[in-house]
């Protein structure tokens, strides 16, 4: 779907791009200025165009997934909690969406459970394991997001999207920048509008988030949940426990 006047060929597209393709920066892709976005490697002056394309991809791709990172997963402060809630508002607009956390950045050995977490050192395992073809990264520190995005573009066919609180990410197919709580809420509204324009309905019970197999086991066999029923609150280790990480677990991992 043509959404810009730009007739140039898209630069950053779903892969697999190859064994070890050059980074987007090596190919001359530069980060957008405020209000702008990157649209498959091309500068898009209006970030709303990029958000609309994100919505279309998340609404139509198999196994669309949101990957929340530590910056909004760990309830460090009220700001993080507000952003987490706004992210759940985005999730609430995508039928059958999955939410798989990136709780930290340490490599997972001897092997990762792709239905539990995604990890920046081997993110392709989670993409392959769940056959994810569209994904939003949010709340991941920029360095680790960039590693993740490069590896996914190299080895998978996933369309990656980065909703960034800073300057955005060249290696994502779609990215916007300066995403504070207000912008996240606006993203949710745009997702809602696009979904309605496409005639896609949400389940009446509000349970549109699909659990992975591991998440389903943790939740007693339940297959879906209502993201708006989730209530993140500040509280350090206590809130971390809500995401399945107990204080004991963290002590062991530390």
């Amino acid at each position, binding site marked *: 779907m043509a959404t810009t006047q730009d007739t140039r060929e898209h630069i950053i597209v779903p892969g697999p791009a190859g064994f*070890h393709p*050059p980074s987007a920066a090596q190919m001359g892709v530069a980060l957008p200025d405020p209000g702008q976005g990157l649209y498959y490697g091309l500068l898009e002056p209006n970030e709303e165009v990029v958000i609309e394309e994100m919505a279309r991809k998340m609404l139509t791709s198999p196994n669309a997934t949101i990957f929340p990172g530590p910056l909004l997963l*760990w309830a*460090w402060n009220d700001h993080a909690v507000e952003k987490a809630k706004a992210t759940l508002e985005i999730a609430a607009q995508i039928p059958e969406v999955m939410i798989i956390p990136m709780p930290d*950045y*340490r*490599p997972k050995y001897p092997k990762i459970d792709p239905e539990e977490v995604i990890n920046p050192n081997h993110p392709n395992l989670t993409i392959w394991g769940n056959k994810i073809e569209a994904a939003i990264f949010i709340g991941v520190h920029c360095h680790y997001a960039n590693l993740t995005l490069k590896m996914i573009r190299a080895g998978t066919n996933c369309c990656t999207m980065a909703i960034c609180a800073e300057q955005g990410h060249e290696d994502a197919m779609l990215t916007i920048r300066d995403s504070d709580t207000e912008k996240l809420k606006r993203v949710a509204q745009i997702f809602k509008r696009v979904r309605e324009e496409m005639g896609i309905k949400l389940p009446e019970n509000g349970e549109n988030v699909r659990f992975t197999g591991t998440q389903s086991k943790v939740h007693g066999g339940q297959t879906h949940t209502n993201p708006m029923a989730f209530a993140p609150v500040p509280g350090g280790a206590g809130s971390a426990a809500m995401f399945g990480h107990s204080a004991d677990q963290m002590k062991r991992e*530390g």
Partner: protein
Amino acid sequence: MSEVKTTPPGETAAAVVTQKQDPHEAAKTQKVVTPEYMFLEAPRTKEFITGSEAAKEAIRRSNVDLAVAYPITPQSETMQLVGVLYGEGYVKEYYRGEEEVGVMAAIAGGSRAGVRCYTATAGPGTLRGLEGIASWPGHRLPAVAMFTCRVVNAPLAIQPDNIEVAYLLNCGMIVFHAENQQDMFDFTMAGFIISEKNDVTLPVGVCCDGFFVTHARGYVRMQDRGIKLPPREPWRGAVPVLDAENPPARLSRDAPVQKSNFMAYNIHAVWQQEVWAAVERSRKYINKYMGGLLTAENVEGADAIIVASGSAAAQSREAVRLCKEKGLKVGLIKVRSLRPFPTQELRALCGNAKLIVVPEFNYVGWLAKEVATAIYGYSKAKIIGGPRVYGGQSMPVELILDEIESGLTGKKSTNVAMSQVMGGSVNPDDVAQFMRSI
């Protein structure tokens, strides 16, 4: 009352008496301003100072948290002057390390903890600390380090020679090359801000040619000492800072280098790509805060262009003046940023030149190789990788002049080997003569 640390060289007894009243008084009243105001708008006044003093004045205005020193000529005076700033309260922490390995590790620790760090070293000190320095970019550690270049190879000497830049170019850090005292001042201050940009989050090396810049005086236009840059905002970095209070706190960046499998290799490869992508992202900030990766003088319509960095640029400027007196159209491109390298800019500026001369203060000619690689296919110019001086030699302007004249007229050079001439049309007989003579 705080203890008086040292009496700064050249300061009057009256100034010391004032310090005794409250040595931190002036530092406490410094006002934070935006980088945009500091670099682009703030009024400046001119002073005639050494390069080390210029670095000191840059640090005074840069809101530095931690400076770690270890003496080595010709940098010793610079860090001693930064120590004076500590005594005056402009730098929050300062100490002398055990040696350069320890200094660079301390800078890594300070930067990872989230504070603004500064150090300086030179020659053998650079190489001794290089393991640590080369690890900074991968750990995404913002900091500014000054390298006052000098001889590193045996038989040892302390004299100017910028061979150490060749080692720094491939670390993944941002590298500037200061021509003079003004550059030392400007590049150091801008370095902190560029280094700490979220999409950069890399160390910055500010190189200069030792003695020529550190110990000589030049005019430096400086902002009022009552203003300073905003503090580092570590929470905005591309990586989490060390946070020992909250789990998960980690001391390393968790690269799985200890594993021998494709995934481990892959993440390390991608990690390196990301470091160099961050170097690329610094371009826009160098353009914004420093006015560009290079400066060009008289390049339009020039038959010959000298491409130089550091002190070689100063000598080249005089060569350009002499060429003008002789009726030769010669321009000068001064490369200020070596990493990132101004590839696109050089291609645009050198496209029509017949001759490019690259004078350097080192044997290997690292700048000539960079220039030739950058403009390959974009210019038909003959590239003379020289003249080169090293081991402490100064560079007579006439050496540069000779290369321009011989390059334009076809006269043989006595100072530059055939192997240092690239591009253009090379006479096979000359090459054969060269091969016979070595």
